[in-house]
């Protein structure tokens, strides 16, 4: 390494500017180089002058005037709508406790309404199940239901529900949906699940009770039962 290189290292004399290895190399070199030692003395002298400059703390002439000037400029800056996005303005509204409480109340009300309607919907579908199940033969020996219903017929034809039904448990015969009594529960349940998505919107508006009764009557009127041998 040449003296020029060591002089560059000498310039970097303050803490953290040299690696340990560089510092060790420099110390070794200084032992043997009079010229570089002289250079170090000059660097130390210069640093004393710089230290004096560094230790002088400039004084702010009038801090109060400066502070009021800054505040007076900050106020119009914060009300400058063009410098801010509308979203930021909207979010700023939530800094008000009244807005936060009001929004939380609205969200809670929406969740409660949704849950209420949702539970009501399941209750209504259960009513359908009961209505269909109660249609049985007076002797109780009949194990198959035949229902004339376009909705259930569509369901029976739906491919998406086939994996959930026992193979051959549901058939369409002469325009009627023929279901084994033991499979009827799962069939109506699958109807329920398929209907969830499409009915959810209607549920939010609350299912019309008159329409529900009509469908229950429809199931009851169009369902007949007969022995399993007919299946």
């Amino acid at each position, binding site marked *: 390494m040449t003296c020029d290189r060591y002089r560059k290292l000498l310039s970097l004399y303050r803490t953290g500017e040299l690696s340990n290895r560089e510092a060790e190399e420099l110390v070794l070199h200084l032992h043997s180089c009079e010229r570089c030692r002289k250079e170090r003395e*000059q660097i130390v002298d210069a640093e004393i002058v710089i230290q004096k400059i*560094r230790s002088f703390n400039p004084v702010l002439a009038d801090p109060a005037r400066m502070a009021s000037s800054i505040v007076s400029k900050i106020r119009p800056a914060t009300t400058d709508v063009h410098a801010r996005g509308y979203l930021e303005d909207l979010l700023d509204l939530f800094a008000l406790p009244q807005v936060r409480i009001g929004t939380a109340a609205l969200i809670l009300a929406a969740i409660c309404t949704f849950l209420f309607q949702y539970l009501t919907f399941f209750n209504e579908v259960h009513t359908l199940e009961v209505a269909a199940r109660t249609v049985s033969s007076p002797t109780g020996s009949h194990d198959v239901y035949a229902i004339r219903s376009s909705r259930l017929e569509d369901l029976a034809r739906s491919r998406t529900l086939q994996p959930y039904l026992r193979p051959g448990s549901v058939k369409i015969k002469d325009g009627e949906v023929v279901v084994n009594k033991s499979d009827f529960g799962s069939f109506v349940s699958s109807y329920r699940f398929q209907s969830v998505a499409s009915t959810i919107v209607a549920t939010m508006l609350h299912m019309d009770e008159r329409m529900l009764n009509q469908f229950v009557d429809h199931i009851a009127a169009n369902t007949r039962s007969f022995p399993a041998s007919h299946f």
Partner: protein
Amino acid sequence: MCDQTEADDIVQESFIRVWKNIQRFDEKQKFSTWFYKIVTNLCLDRLRALKRSRSLFSSTEKDLDNPMPADSLNVERLSSNKDLADIIRSLTSNLPLKQKVVFTLRDLQDLSVEEVCEITGMGKASIKANLHHARKRIRDLLAVQYNIRSVSS
């Protein structure tokens, strides 16, 4: 900036920027480093604008790099903001902008090399190189004022 009015403007603008951008401040970062970054960027913008306007109105390049008289480097008479401004201007007026910034932050503001890296966005090696050149030039100026004989000359 070495000018009271300019410095006041920069300080005011810095506080306004802090106020406007406080949501961008990363709490893991040191606040003073973030503040220095804002101040440094504003100073650099202002210095570049001043240099552009001066080069438009000055007749020769010589006017731009006109050094201060050597006796203005007397730190013994340092007792006011103006004295400080005169001394710093004398020391740094002939330095390129990068060297001036690095020297000011590291040697006058006493910040660590890592902080200077973060504030300027420069690499450690570049900062060391700029520091070396700045200190060399400043040493030469001080050598004249304080009658220190330069070894390399």
